């Protein structure tokens, strides 16, 4: 097409489409491409980036100054990591994925992506990957920096810690997508996110110690989405949990993953609401 002459567009001169090449199979290639684009948009979104970086860094500084020498004990380290991970899962994974889902939907991006070859699951997974990766990176930096600078002990059972991070990211991303289904605009996300943040934070003992809750509430709190993450982190650092406990925590998180997936499949909106 030329806007300066009457020459016809040169569509006939276009090369034919060439099959995609690369080391990744189709699904992973599509997810990686979309996640890369989502990562670029996250980097260019100053508000989201501030939430993702400044908040955890400030939080770490606060924890380090308050906990002091207690960070050098396994209990202190586990408590600090739990607080940090809780904040990261809520503010970086949950809130960023919620914001991204609502923004992309209202821009018409999700509907457009649905006209392409990427499957629904690939599109939604790609939206969560940058925030999840950032969470893992910040947590890892905190762990290493804590060990080097604050004599924080390393986790005794790192696999439990990894399980907590992976399942925690999956659950919070799914909760974000569920919340997006009920969120009309980016502004209203500030309201619709509050119940999830409140319930998850309270249930996991981020705001008040879990044992300070009344008996029945404390028992229910153990099944809220973040509570098993906190237990797995604590067990990974200091405990020697029974297989039954680990199974219950893992099953609770998997149940949230299953429930979230079903609700997303049934209720997620792909076309703009406004």
């Amino acid at each position, binding site marked *: 097409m030329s806007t300066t002459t009457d020459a016809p567009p040169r569509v*006939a001169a276009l090369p*034919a*489409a060439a099959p*995609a090449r690369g080391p990744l199979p189709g699904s992973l*290639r599509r997810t990686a491409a979309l996640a890369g684009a989502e990562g670029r948009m996250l980097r260019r979104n100053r508000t989201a980036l501030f939430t993702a970086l400044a908040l955890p860094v400030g939080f770490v500084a606060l924890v380090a100054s308050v906990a002091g020498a207690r960070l050098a004990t396994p209990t202190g380290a586990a408590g600090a990591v739990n607080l940090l991970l809780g904040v990261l899962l809520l503010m970086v994974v949950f809130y960023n994925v919620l914001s991204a889902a609502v923004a992309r939907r209202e821009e018409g991006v999700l*509907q457009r992506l649905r006209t392409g070859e990427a499957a629904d699951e690939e599109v939604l997974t790609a939206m969560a990957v940058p925030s999840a990766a950032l969470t893992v990176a910040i947590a890892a930096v905190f762990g290493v920096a804590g060990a080097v600078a604050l004599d924080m002990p390393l986790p005794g059972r790192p696999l439990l810690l990894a399980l907590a991070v992976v399942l925690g990211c999956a659950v919070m991303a799914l909760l974000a997508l569920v919340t997006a289904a009920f969120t009309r605009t980016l502004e209203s996300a500030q309201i619709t996110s509050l119940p999830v943040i409140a319930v998850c934070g309270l249930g996991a003992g981020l705001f008040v110690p879990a044992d300070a809750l009344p008996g029945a509430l404390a028992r229910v709190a153990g099944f809220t989405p973040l509570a098993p993450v906190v237990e797995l982190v604590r067990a990974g650092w200091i405990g020697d949990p029974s297989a039954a406990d680990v199974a219950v925590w893992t099953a609770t998180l998997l149940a949230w993953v299953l429930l979230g997936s079903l609700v997303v499949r049934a209720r997620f909106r792909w076309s*703009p609401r406004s």
Partner: protein
Amino acid sequence: MTTQTPAEPLQRTGRGAGGPAPAAVEVRDLRRTHASGAEAVRGISFTVQPGEVFGLLGTNGAGKTSTTEVVAGLAAATSGTVRVLGHDPVRERRRVRPRTGVVLQSGGLPGDLTVTEAATTWAATLTAARPVGDVLDVLDLTRRASTTVKSLSGGERRRLDLAVALLGDPDLLLLDEPTTGLDAESRRAVWDLVRDLSAAGTAVLLTTHHLEEAEHLADRLAVMHRGLVVAEGTVADVVATHRAEVRWHRDAGRPDDTALAPGDAVSFDGRHVVVRTASLQRTLARVLAWADAQRLELPELRATPASLETAFLALARSADETR
């Protein structure tokens, strides 16, 4: 823009050869009712053949976009059948998507990505993609390659929408109001592009409310009004559903004007006499001869040939009257 000759020029290669190619789009008795209960599409049928540009023409709210969304597999039909390149666009999405290009009315490319990033990302999700640079070049977007999508003008965004739709070398293009927001020159260029694609064998389903666009591009078209197809055929077929007219200002002191043209439909439209006719030249000659013989002036005399616009308006009016 570069001018080198590519090694592999665009051509349809008869994918799925071995028998007659299925229709690019086949819609039968399609109905679509929204969750609100509003019936957007009320039982329509049409077929788009390979290499054909088929226009869905209608006013806002006629059901064009609702129809396109079903054909694109974005929404399920409430009833009826839709086949795209021989497949169900919802259930057999994986077979259909690699062979279709879609331009939605709402655009839908992320505003924070640059032109190149948006196109490259899309290309990376395709089974087979044309080189991004070549496609941007053809759509005259090379010089805007580093500009973010949100900084593009409306016309540039529309061209990027088209570029993305062309990245996969589609057999079928679904274009929903593709020239909305374009200036006259860009609109002409897009029309040329669509004709070029059609000549190369790509089927195009075009929805528009611009009559000139439908007239210029569509090999065949269906006129939609309130969820129904009220006329279908070539532009000439649709125009033929409406008659040309001769009209003039009525003089109250004159003998009965209706006696002037036996055989033609003479009526009154406010203070005008209107003669509707299938043969404008013959009727106009007869009216002038009659006026000459009567030594009459025919004030505000006007002869209007049948056009897509007059036919479209008449079809819409007629459909409203028969509701």
